[in-house]
């Protein structure tokens, strides 16, 4: 009769020779199972704290970006009815997305139907696929858009650069820029994280009156109102930032939204 007592079964298992097939399989299975439980438990317990950390980080960057915009504090403090709102927009329509709210955005982005594959010749920012929906922040005063804060991303020299760019209500001038994530060369390309360099974006025009995109990171000091100073020794990172800004402010990026704001329809 088979012995079903678990303790004696366990002892019998341990007493088996190490190289027996049964014990090998049993040890492999037990190790895998115990490790899996251990890892899953840690991940599940720690996830809320990590999510809070990430949210706090984004919020902090947003606040830093806003405080860098000249005159921002007065706008926020002064005007009645001026408040920063998070809106999910549909990039192709240039209008608020239907059925998607900031809360459900993460889930919606998991669906590949909400992404557009870019043709190589259009993909100046090097991102491969572009989401069709994005969460932006906007500030209205008296029904007029005063400020747009747009997340942008592009391929840098060592990895993806993610940033947020703020546009003034005239839809021609950059109000500020902040890099939220990058992995460029420390001391060279990574200087795009320096507040002093980011501050040079404020007041730079990105398009002329006809709407043509002219923004560029200069090679060397900037010599027009459409340029910001280049970073010495980081040509490829500088070019990446140029392409990224031009892509996202262009027709395949937030162009439709910017046009809608100009027409006063948004």
């Amino acid at each position, binding site marked *: 009769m088979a012995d079903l007592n678990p303790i004696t079964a366990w002892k019998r298992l341990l007493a088996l020779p190490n*190289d027996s097939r049964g014990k090998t399989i049993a040890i*492999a299975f037990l190790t895998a199972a115990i490790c*899996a439980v251990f890892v899953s438990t840690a991940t599940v317990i720690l996830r809320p704290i990590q999510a809070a950390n990430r949210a706090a980080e984004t919020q902090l960057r947003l606040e830093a970006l806003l405080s860098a915009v000249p005159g921002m504090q007065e706008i926020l403090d002064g005007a009645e009815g001026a408040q920063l709102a998070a809106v999910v927009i549909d990039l192709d329509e240039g209008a608020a997305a239907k059925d998607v709210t900031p809360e459900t955005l993460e889930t919606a982005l998991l669906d590949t139907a909400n992404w557009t594959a870019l043709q190589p010749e259009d993909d100046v920012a090097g991102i491969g696929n572009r989401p069709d929906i994005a969460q932006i922040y906007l500030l209205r005063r008296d029904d007029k858009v005063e400020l747009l804060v747009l997340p942008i991303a592009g391929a840098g020299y060592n990895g993806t650069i993610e940033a947020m760019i703020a546009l003034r209500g005239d839809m021609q001038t950059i109000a500020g820029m902040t890099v939220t994530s990058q992995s460029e060369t420390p001391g060279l390309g990574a200087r795009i994280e320096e507040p002093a360099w980011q501050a040079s974006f404020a007041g730079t025009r990105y398009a002329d009156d006809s709407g043509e995109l002219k923004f560029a990171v200069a090679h060397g000091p900037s010599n027009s109102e459409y340029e910001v100073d280049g970073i010495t020794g980081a040509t490829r990172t500088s070019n990446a930032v140029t392409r990224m800004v031009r892509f996202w402010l262009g027709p395949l990026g937030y162009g439709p939204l910017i046009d809608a704001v100009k027409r006063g329809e948004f």
Partner: protein
Amino acid sequence: MAAGRLWSALTRPLIDQNPITLQILGICSALAVTTSLDTAVTMAASLTVVLVLSTVIVSLIRRHIPDSIRLIVQIVIVASLVIVIDQFLQAFFFDISQRLSVFVGLITTNCLVLGRTESFARSNPPLVSAADALGNGLGYSLVLILIGALRELFGTGKLFGAQVLPLVEQGGWFTPLSLMLLAPSAFFLLGGLVWAVRSIWPDQAEAPDTTPPIPEEARR
């Protein structure tokens, strides 16, 4: 006797058997995370914790690990611990874990960890294994912290993010040496360190692979 063995297992890896300078193990991470002192310290602490825990676990089950799958069992244990440590850092030291990026995850493949579990913990009782692992972890930490401190000090004039040497830009005298923040400088420093250690303790130097031939003129 037992205490003496523990003590030597703990102290020998610090300099005599230092995993980095003598055995040149685990230098990939030593090069990558030493741009500043706080990342170096975090990395060193993470590696030491993973190393001690994994050697203790492997040592506890050493009599029951089948030879044919021993490497996989050890790697699974190490990898699980690394994932947990990584998650822990992301939860409680978010800022530093962002800067360490993939290198915490790469502790899994750090030859130092597998080297200790495979060559020591698998054939020794838990207490000695733990002492040996702690010694090796501290030896690794020593080198990491030294190189991290040098690179941060000369690269940015700071230690732990606090300005130590006044920069020229801020009216001081120190011009930061940007090379120190790039990977090659870690090679230079590590090479210099290995050279210094082997000059002081010549018995650590390896025998040359080949003896150079004596030129004809010298023989005459």
